[in-house]
């Protein structure tokens, strides 16, 4: 579960990787940051896991604040750093008693870059194709304890492991709409006798300009309606070298959202809803993911 949260945070981070344009809310595009330019993004995240049919009746809630800074090294190369602050609460039934276990703190730092391989601009439209890759540095605490002892891995704010990820992303945008498609993979490392399953993720995002209906010479802002589809697959975790039968699987999300785009900043919010969850064993299912935030171009 912790890895799923990190996967989500990765998606949020990469969604920033093209701050010049509006861009999807939960996925990546190939559009560049201006050379020498900075962007800052703050994202609030609330993720709820429920529907545990087991006797423990687990409910997990994760609240996060993700802070990202991006810098344009060259017209086609941008680098990013992202650090989440996480607040996790697990409600679980132990020996008939409902118990809360929780943790709070900074998570793992993500460092990554994106290079635009292909850029084709025309009047009021653009197509970009890019690749991205990076690492997750285990800066978060992976040894938090409470009165019951060491917290389970999903409740730790860090994973303790070095992970790496890479992908390819394409964007087509006109002044009326934008379409983004992305494919990415993450290879997870091992720490504390735990190795999360590797991940594959595919995203498709459509953003359509609701307002203004027609453009004029001094149009200053857009209001986009956003609809995204995400397919996420994770292999089973390995604990002390053994495959965990209650982990991994495939989830498909449908994500309606909204974006208000001005010249200086972007406000955005989205509700990620699972429409298909084929998880192994008793792996916790996602109830919903809500994200909201802003992006500023410096």
């Amino acid at each position, binding site marked *: 579960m912790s890895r799923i949260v990190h996967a989500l945070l990765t998606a949020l981070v990469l969604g920033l990787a093209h701050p010049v344009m509006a861009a999807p809310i939960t996925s990546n595009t190939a559009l560049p940051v201006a050379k020498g330019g900075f962007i800052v993004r703050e994202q609030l995240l609330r993720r709820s896991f429920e529907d545990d049919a087991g006797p423990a009746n687990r409910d997990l809630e994760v609240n996060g604040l993700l802070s990202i800074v991006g810098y344009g090294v060259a017209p086609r190369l941008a680098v990013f750093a992202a650090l989440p602050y996480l607040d996790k609460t697990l409600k679980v039934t132990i020996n008939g008693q409902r118990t809360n276990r929780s943790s709070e703190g900074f998570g793992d730092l993500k460092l990554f870059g994106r290079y635009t391989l292909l850029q084709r601009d025309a*009047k009021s439209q*653009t197509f970009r194709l890019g690749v991205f890759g990076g690492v997750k540095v285990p800066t978060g605490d992976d040894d938090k304890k409470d009165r019951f002892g060491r917290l389970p891995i999903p409740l730790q704010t860090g994973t303790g492991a070095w992970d790496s990820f890479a992908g390819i992303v394409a964007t087509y945008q006109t*002044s009326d709409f934008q379409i983004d498609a992305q494919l990415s993979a993450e290879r997870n490392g091992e720490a504390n006798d735990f190795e999360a399953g590797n991940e594959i993720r595919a995203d498709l995002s459509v953003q359509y300009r609701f307002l203004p209906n027609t453009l004029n010479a*001094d149009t200053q802002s*857009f209001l986009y309606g956003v609809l995204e589809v995400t397919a996420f697959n994770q292999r089973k975790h390995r604990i002390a070298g053994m495959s965990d039968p209650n982990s991994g699987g495939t989830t498909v999300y449908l994500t309606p959202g909204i974006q208000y*785009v001005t010249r200086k900043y972007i406000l955005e919010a989205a509700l990620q809803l699972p429409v298909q969850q084929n998880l192994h064993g008793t792996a916790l299912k996602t109830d919903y993911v809500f994200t909201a935030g802003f992006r500023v171009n410096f």
Partner: protein
Amino acid sequence: MKRHLVIAWLSMLGGGVAWADDTHYQLHVDGLVCPFCAYSIEKNVGKLDGVIDVQANLKEGLVSVLVADGKTLDEEVVRQTITNAGFTLVGIESHEPAIR
């Protein structure tokens, strides 16, 4: 300086009026598709020497640049600036001063 303040004041009024001897350029930019893009271009072109005002027109894919008297825009410099902002310069036109 005083003259620039007057121009800035006129621009704020929305009149888009140029001072007598300033030169007005029109940049044709491909890939200009949203307000966030416009800001990136306006910010970078605005840093060029002699530039007084920059306005991006999303509808037409045009960027209007007002340059102070005695200054000119070098096409290659502008092209590189637009490229650095993440877009493509197609052409550049200069116009006679708006007010005589």
